[in-house]
């Protein structure tokens, strides 16, 4: 995993000290991948003084089919806001996986959930299948926070941004009664990969 430097004051120059992160989070309508993407990007902007842009595929088709959210994080200004070749991706459904896994940058990181996705070994990426769904159901009992667990795993794997930053955003965004659940999910995700990588 590339390890970004501690974020600098934003320089507004085109030269960059941090490898720009191009991320695609994907899944189905109800899984909250867009929310996860927003939280990630917002944490980067508000608590790490980085630049971030988030976009999403949008449309009535998002009602049924695959949902996709793009995030770009960088300490340089970001112009083109879409991700053409992500270096990080997460797919929470098979459909999303089939659709987006091939666009990953060779050697990139591809996170999936074993409950939903069967990985294709031909993809040129570090594929990381996790039992997030299973773990969330076991430890928290509510699938609604799977997206936050995924976020935990993602930042645990990549040191994209610090978990505290995400926690700050959760505090602002999540209604009080659900906050603990979300915090637990974040930690669960982090723990899953810490166990893995350490």
């Amino acid at each position, binding site marked *: 995993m590339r390890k970004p430097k501690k974020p600098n004051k934003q320089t507004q120059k085109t030269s960059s000290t941090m490898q720009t992160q191009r991320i695609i989070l994907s899944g189905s309508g109800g899984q909250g991948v867009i929310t996860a993407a927003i939280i990630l990007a917002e944490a980067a902007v508000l608590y790490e003084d980085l630049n971030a842009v988030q976009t999403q595929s949008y449309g*009535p*088709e998002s*009602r*049924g089919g695959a949902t996709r959210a793009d995030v770009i994080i960088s300490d340089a200004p970001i112009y083109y806001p879409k991700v053409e070749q992500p270096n990080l991706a997460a797919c929470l459904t098979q459909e999303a996986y089939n659709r987006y896994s091939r666009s990953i940058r060779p050697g990139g990181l591809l996170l999936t959930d074993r409950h939903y996705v069967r990985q294709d070994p031909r993809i040129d990426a570090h594929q990381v299948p996790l039992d997030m769904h299973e773990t969330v159901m076991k430890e928290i009992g509510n699938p609604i926070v799977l997206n936050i667990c995924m976020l935990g795993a993602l930042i645990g794997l990549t040191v994209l941004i610090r978990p505290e930053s995400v926690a700050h955003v959760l505090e602002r965004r999540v209604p009080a009664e659900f906050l603990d659940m979300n915090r637990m999910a974040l930690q669960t995700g982090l723990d899953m990969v810490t166990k893995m990588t350490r």
Partner: protein
Amino acid sequence: MPVKDYLRLRFLPHIWCPGCGHGIVMSGMIRAIEEIGLEKNEVVVVSGIGCSSRMAGYLDFHTMHTLHGRALAFATGVKLGRPDLTVIVPMGDGDALAIGGNHFIHAARRDIDLTAVIMNNRIYGMTGGQGSPMTPQGMRSTTAPRGIADAAFDLVELAKGAGASFVARTTTFHATELTRMIEKAIRHKGFSVVEVMSQCPTYYGRQNRLGNGVEMMKGFRDNTTSIGSKKREARPDLIERGIFVDEDRPVYSPEGLKAD
């Protein structure tokens, strides 16, 4: 013919959310047409824009998916162009009564021989849950975070006030009644309005904590009653279902009325 044989299978499954009521209305409409025994080539379906209006594309009739609110105007042209055809207009509550309200009252006034099937889910589904003129006062929508201030239309009263000669109301729970009413509405010569209370679990249900499609249909079962039923004595809030107006009038044509 089974319901499926009236559909353009190539384009299915449809885009409606799990539990959305619009599909129930579509199959009820097909059954009504089957019951009447209309040939597919005799039927034109004209819709506007909205989740409900997507129905036109799935149906294997002559179909037109037009502009938001304008379906009845397009349908007027089709009907007057080919008076021998049966023209059915599936509409959303926003489509029919917000932007399309004028065409609605004028179609009713003219009493032109069209059948308007209004899927009243009390919300703008397609654009993500804003209130419609059918959203009851106090309910929540994405543009009424404090609850809706305006009174809703009573669709039956409005249609009556505008002069419609056939006005009925039912719900997606009452699937047999639904088929029967649409059938009667199509058979009726003149402008017929069938209000079908339909569920949008994704937006209306979620925002107002009414549960999923199943729960919302239970609501239709429990909170409605047939016209004139005694139940309303105990519970005056029950919404009446049934045929409110069914008048035989000479058939409209711009050339003058024709006894039929």
